[in-house]
């Protein structure tokens, strides 16, 4: 069912997607859930507006498992790349959930490039980006106590993954949840591509310690950090991981408790990570917590 989104973006085909949406379909964008034809039409119009300013769209990775399809897309213009992930839950041609996570900071630069030429200086926001849903966070104990249940890969895995890749993905989760810096070499190679939004952390032109530096930066800037797996969808060598970090960050107004939803698309090759893309919606974060991402 990813084709409905592709047809919207590439052929301005609103009808195919509209026909696939049902009465109770929900569409997540900008950390806001949208329902009903009025809101859905608004989102389609926004995407068409974005596409009218884009050079091209590329589908970088896809996976399909049961009634879930997901894809990583890249919007490319002369000056920027914007990654976004689309995931849909579907059955018999009907879409129940359409979830999208966008590197909105890059999108803002992308969309505002034309307007800057016309005199606008606001390059860090997108007028039509949704207001995120209200969120109340509660404090909780972030320690990985031995006798407390913490979601692991096997607990939440949906789809098929070989034992070997399951082990690798579990090691990957230990790195990012448990600050297991020593585990990096078992999962990544020097050629593994790792990017966080449009920033390449590892791969061509980076140093061998760059992943460890990124991990250290996360740990250092997100205090009392707790990482929680939400969903893991696997399709042979491709895996989509939805996860979130709850943490305290330092701001001019003191410590603020925040939640950072992250979606990560991974591909494996020869039992190592070949590519890994993190997409984080910076605008939604800033709108929600009135402070920019700390990195």
């Amino acid at each position, binding site marked *: 069912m990813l084709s409905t989104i592709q047809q919207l973006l590439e052929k301005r085909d609103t009808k195919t997607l509209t026909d696939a949406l*049902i*009465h*109770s379909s*929900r569409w997540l964008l900008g950390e806001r*859930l949208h*329902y*009903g034809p*009025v*809101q859905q039409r608004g989102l389609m119009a926004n995407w068409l507006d974005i596409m009218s300013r884009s050079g091209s769209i590329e589908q970088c990775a896809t996976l399909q498992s049961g009634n879930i399809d997901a894809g990583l897309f890249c919007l490319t213009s002369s000056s920027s790349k914007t990654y976004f992930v689309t995931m849909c839950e579907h*059955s*018999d041609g*009907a879409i*129940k959930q359409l979830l999208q996570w966008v590197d909105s900071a890059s999108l803002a630069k992308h969309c505002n490039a034309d307007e800057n030429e016309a005199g606008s200086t606001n390059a860090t926001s997108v007028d039509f980006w949704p*207001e995120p*849903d*209200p*969120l*109340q966070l*509660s*404090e*909780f*104990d*972030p320690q990985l106590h031995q*006798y*407390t*249940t*913490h*979601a*692991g890969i096997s*607990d*939440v895995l949906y789809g098929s993954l070989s034992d070997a890749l399951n082990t690798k993905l579990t090691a990957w989760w230990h790195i990012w949840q448990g600050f297991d810096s020593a585990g990096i070499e078992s999962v990544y190679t020097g050629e593994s591509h790792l990017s966080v939004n449009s920033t390449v952390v590892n791969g061509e032109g980076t140093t061998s310690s760059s992943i460890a530096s990124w991990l250290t930066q996360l740990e250092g800037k997100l205090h009392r950090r*707790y990482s*929680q*797996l*939400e*969903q893991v969808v696997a399709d042979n060598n491709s895996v989509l991981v939805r996860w*979130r970090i*709850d943490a305290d960050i330092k701001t001019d107004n003191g410590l603020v408790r925040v939640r950072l939803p992250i979606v990560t698309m991974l591909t494996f090759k020869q039992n190592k990570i070949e590519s890994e893309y993190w997409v984080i919606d910076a605008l939604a974060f800033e709108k929600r917590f009135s402070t920019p991402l700390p990195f």
Partner: protein
Amino acid sequence: MSEISIAKTVYWQPLHDMLDPARSKTQTLAGFDDEFVDLADYILRITHRIWEQKNIGACYDYYADFCPVHTLGGYADSVDVVIQNTLKTIAAFPDRSLIGEDVIFSEEANEVYYSSHRITSIMTNKGPSEFGAPTGKTGRVTTIADCMCKDNKIFYEWLMRDNSFLIAQLGISLDDAAAFQANFSLSNTFTQWINEEYSRTAANEASLGDDLSEQDKPWGDFAKAWAENLFNKRMFNQLSHFYKPNAAVQWPGGRQATGNAAISGMLIKWLASCPDANMVVDHVCVTHYDQNRVHLALRWGVAGHYNATDAKYAQFNQQPHYILGASHFEIEDGRIAREWTVFDEVAALANLMRKLPNEAEA
């Protein structure tokens, strides 16, 4: 068609099928109009007719003349008042949609059907409402409506709406909305009801018997154990008995927690606002989605004494505090995968301002 596929049909139902169901009749529905194939169909279609087709007068067809409707913020018992309230709400939110997310139902004694209907509404505040002057903003809200139905009519209803989440989107503060509501006069019936509910709940007395089938009794036990162990005994180390490791929970006012650590923190913080709280589960119904997935609907009450977790509400400390709430669970492989819990925090705060419930009169 079995009950299993009714739940799945509702989940995946397009609008045209909701308005003209393709499935064949599987429930007897004695006394109901022939057009309805099952209780879920009855609830979804009459809701659409009344709210989205704006056929408000259809309430006369589908509500009994005397129909008590309980909310945490008021009470009505005549179909005329139900119609007047519906009209006022539509005037305040003219584009309000009522999107049926789930209908969890049971067939009870004496040809009574019980339905717990979870609804998502998108609504734009264009007129004066129960929260104050119009803001022009659009919001989303979750409602759970529990209805008892017989002979084609709803004759008893409990209505729970996540108003604190709605007003946050409308740009209205909880204090302002509650203060506005606290000025409304309340009927003696409401005051008597909330006092009695408080007293009964604090005494741990459930209001209804257990009408679950033998097959579903374990789910009734599950629901009661959830309330007893987590809320009444505060044994949060048992969360993993009830929740999957990535369970996603939606509570009022934008509380969202995933996983046991975050759920634990959310429940502890909420219970700290009523540390001697006692929860009573007053009703449970069950539908089966497929072999591994079961949907549970709970209606419950919590009674205790208020303890402000925000200093600005300290003036209400030690006042009796009562919450009417409902929860929908989607249970997979024996544990909760997704939960929606709904109650009205605006009305709860307004009641504290009114000094309700009144313990001396309870």
